């Protein structure tokens, strides 16, 4: 047996040129591109990406009237939940991609390749970036479309907009990390279930005694509860800190995956330290809010909004709004002017004060009713505008023009005034019957019912409803002239519904009017 040792001086022909660090990075990027393409071709990712884009497109296409006046500090948050299914699909598929070698027995071959396992893990992580970018594009498109509407209200937050894409990115990275920690195919699904339960728990916690703890969850659902929006500075959402926290988490999870796969280089260790620092900074930043000042600001906005609002005058009336709603004041003025144009007597010259109000006593953006104002001439308006909120506001304005105060609706108005209020609202409306149906709580134009308003609704008896229906069937100019002519009678609590019908020349409803309906 020969065991002669010789010095090797020869090299094989045709070898690739020795490659430097730049090309090593290039190789990682090339693999990331390859894996990104593979990810995009995975059925779950493709399906949920298409569903996400389709859902967003549909949401932007099929909108109601209120969508013409989007409040941007809710629009930004509304972009966060839709990408969740895409995130789950990405988590499952990035996990499968990272486990591919193990599953198909190519570990043995690939372990002797120039690219070390930790660089392959980095490529897997990077392969999820395009989907996060796609999500960011959809989010940006959705927000931009809303923000460019002439009626757009307020401003959004980059931090809130970043949550959707960052959650998608984090899901992808988590899938890769899970492949290192628990290299089992069922691990992602178990993780998704556990993560969902944790997020529900975090939401519960955030709505109870420790609201700040909830911010440790990647996505904070509380605050998107369907109530009316509030000014941005009252939200108390540390969106920028939270985005930083998520960014740090993404980096920390990436570093964990790299370290677990053998990438214990100085660069990775330094990046880990930085990632942990960023995560900690984000987490701490979320917690260190001046809650007392925030509560005080919310209380001020609820109880003495005039301190933080600016007002403008139109035709003798005053319109006061929170700073972000300044642009809607002209629309309020147009409604008041329209309603007033149908009125008679001194109401045609009446000055009203339109005051925007919110109620944060029960929490932010929770469903709560505003109490009607008892101050003469004051009309309340909420923070939603457009769609049904326009005739609702008109009801409030008409109530003040007819009855003097909003809180008149808290007492039974079983007389001509309710008919007059509804005529002022509907007699100047381009589609009165449709609006009548929409503005009523029961979506009907017959029988007794409650007409919605920004504060207390207006109760209509079946007789009042019948008279309003009759009025809407008659020529508008004729009724308008009669309303103006009999204004003092029609705005008197002593004039019955039947007498109002007679004054306006329409059929008197049969039977006795019940005011308890």
């Amino acid at each position: 047996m020969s065991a002669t040792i010789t010095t090797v001086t020869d090299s094989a022909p045709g070898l690739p040129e020795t490659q430097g660090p730049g090309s090593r990075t290039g190789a990682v990027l090339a693999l990331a591109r390859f894996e990104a393409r593979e990810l995009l071709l995975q059925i779950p990712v493709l399906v949920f990406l298409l569903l996400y884009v389709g859902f967003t497109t549909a949401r932007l296409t099929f909108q109601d009237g209120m969508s013409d006046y989007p409040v941007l500090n809710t629009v930004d948050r509304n972009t966060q939940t839709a990408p969740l299914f895409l995130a789950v699909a990405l988590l499952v598929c990035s996990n499968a991609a990272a486990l591919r070698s193990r599953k198909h027995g190519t570990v043995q071959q690939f372990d002797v390749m120039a690219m070390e396992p930790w660089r392959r893990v980095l490529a897997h992580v990077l392969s999820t970036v395009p989907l996060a970018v796609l999500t960011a594009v959809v989010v940006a498109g959705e927000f931009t479309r809303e923000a460019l509407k002439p009626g757009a209200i307020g401003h959004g937050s980059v931090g809130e907009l970043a949550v959707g894409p960052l959650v998608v990115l984090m899901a992808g990275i988590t899938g890769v990390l899970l492949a290192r920690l628990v290299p089992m195919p069922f691990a992602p699904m178990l993780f998704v279930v556990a993560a969902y339960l944790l997020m529900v728990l975090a939401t519960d916690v955030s709505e109870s005694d420790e609201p700040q703890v909830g911010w440790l969850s990647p996505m904070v659902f509380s605050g998107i509860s369907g109530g009316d929006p509030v000014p941005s500075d009252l939200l108390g959402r540390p969106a920028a800190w939270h985005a930083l926290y998520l960014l740090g988490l993404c980096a920390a999870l990436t570093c964990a995956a790299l370290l677990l796969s053998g990438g214990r280089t100085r660069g990775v260790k330094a990046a880990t330290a930085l990632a942990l620092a960023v995560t900690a900074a984000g987490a701490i930043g979320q917690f260190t809010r001046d809650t007392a000042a925030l509560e005080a600001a919310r209380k001020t906005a609820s109880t003495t909004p005039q301190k933080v609002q600016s007002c403008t005058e139109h035709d003798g009336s005053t319109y006061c709004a929170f700073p972000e709603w300044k642009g809607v004041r002209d629309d309020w003025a147009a409604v008041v002017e329209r309603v007033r144009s149908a009125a008679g007597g001194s109401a045609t010259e009446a000055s009203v004060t339109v005051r925007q109000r919110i109620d944060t006593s029960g929490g932010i953006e929770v469903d709560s009713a505003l109490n009607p104002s008892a101050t003469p001439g004051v009309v309340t308006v909420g923070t939603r505008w457009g769609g049904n909120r326009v005739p609702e506001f008109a009801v409030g304005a008409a109530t003040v023009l007819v009855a003097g105060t909003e809180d008149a609706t808290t007492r039974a108005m079983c007389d001509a005034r309710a008919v007059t209020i509804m005529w002022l609202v509907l007699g100047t409306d381009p589609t009165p019957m449709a609006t009548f149906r929409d503005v009523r709580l029961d979506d009907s134009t017959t029988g007794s019912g409650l007409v919605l308003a920004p504060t207390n609704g207006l109760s209509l008896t079946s007789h009042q409803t019948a008279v309003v229906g009759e009025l809407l069937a008659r020529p508008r100019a004729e009724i308008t002239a009669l309303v103006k002519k009999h204004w003092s009678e029609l705005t008197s609590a002593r004039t019955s519904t039947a007498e109002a019908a007679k004054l306006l020349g329409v059929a008197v409803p049969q039977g006795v009017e019940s005011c308890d309906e």
Partner: protein
Amino acid sequence: MTTPPTTVTATGLSLRYGGTHALDGVSLRLTRGVTGLLGPNGAGKTTLLRVLATAVPPDRGEFTALGHDPGTSAGRLALRRALGYLPQTPGFHPDFTAFAFVDYVAILKELTDRAARHREVRRVLDAVDLADVRGKRIKRLSGGMRQRVALAAALVGDPGFLVLDEPTVGLDPEQRMRFRGLIAEAGEGRTVLLSTHQTEDVAMLCHRVVVLAQGRVRFEGTPAELTARAAGRVWSSAERDPAALAGWRTGTGTFRNVGDPPEGAHLLEPTLEDGYLLTLDSESRTVTA
């Protein structure tokens, strides 16, 4: 005739799995061309190949290949860039096309220029005669085609050192012949270490042969030298000769015996297999009719 320059040298490579010496002081040297690695099951062939392919480090000993010392991280990286490795049971990503799989391997070999890499992938797929099916998913390919995909993956990047672990196992004769042609071509200008059970492979392909048994090198030389070991030690007889180390009935009905022939025995022309059998310890190799 001048001796070709040595490209791979190994000194005293040892590796234990538990209490078993998978490799026990293996020293060898390889030159350009195809070197066959013969040995019975459990001889340590696969372990030696895995060590030389840098898949596992030896417990003791060292080696250099193509001037690179895999004991250092820089040397290991340089060697891996110059290495093509076809394991005994190569894995595949069944949903990848043949092209995508080889492209994937090319990326792992850090061939970064996309256009050049794709040219290289097409070249190796052409070389293994898979150009027509490169767009087909691997799960749709036959076993022989998959084996050629694995060879293409080993060849991509034009590696200077090719380590092939029993690449012809499971192939039918036609496919095996085709594969031999491919390996012969691959051996031109490269150092190829071919592990095999098939002495025909070695006889047809290899300019050198190493016989390994029980983790030790039992022979290192040319196939002719291994064959020459059996000169005068192969004979025929009507019955199996009990003194023979090995013997088997041939197609003509007579027995071919290997060992120390009796006086007056009818000597036969030795083959590589005869030399191989004689090289192995008689305890580790018993061949009977």
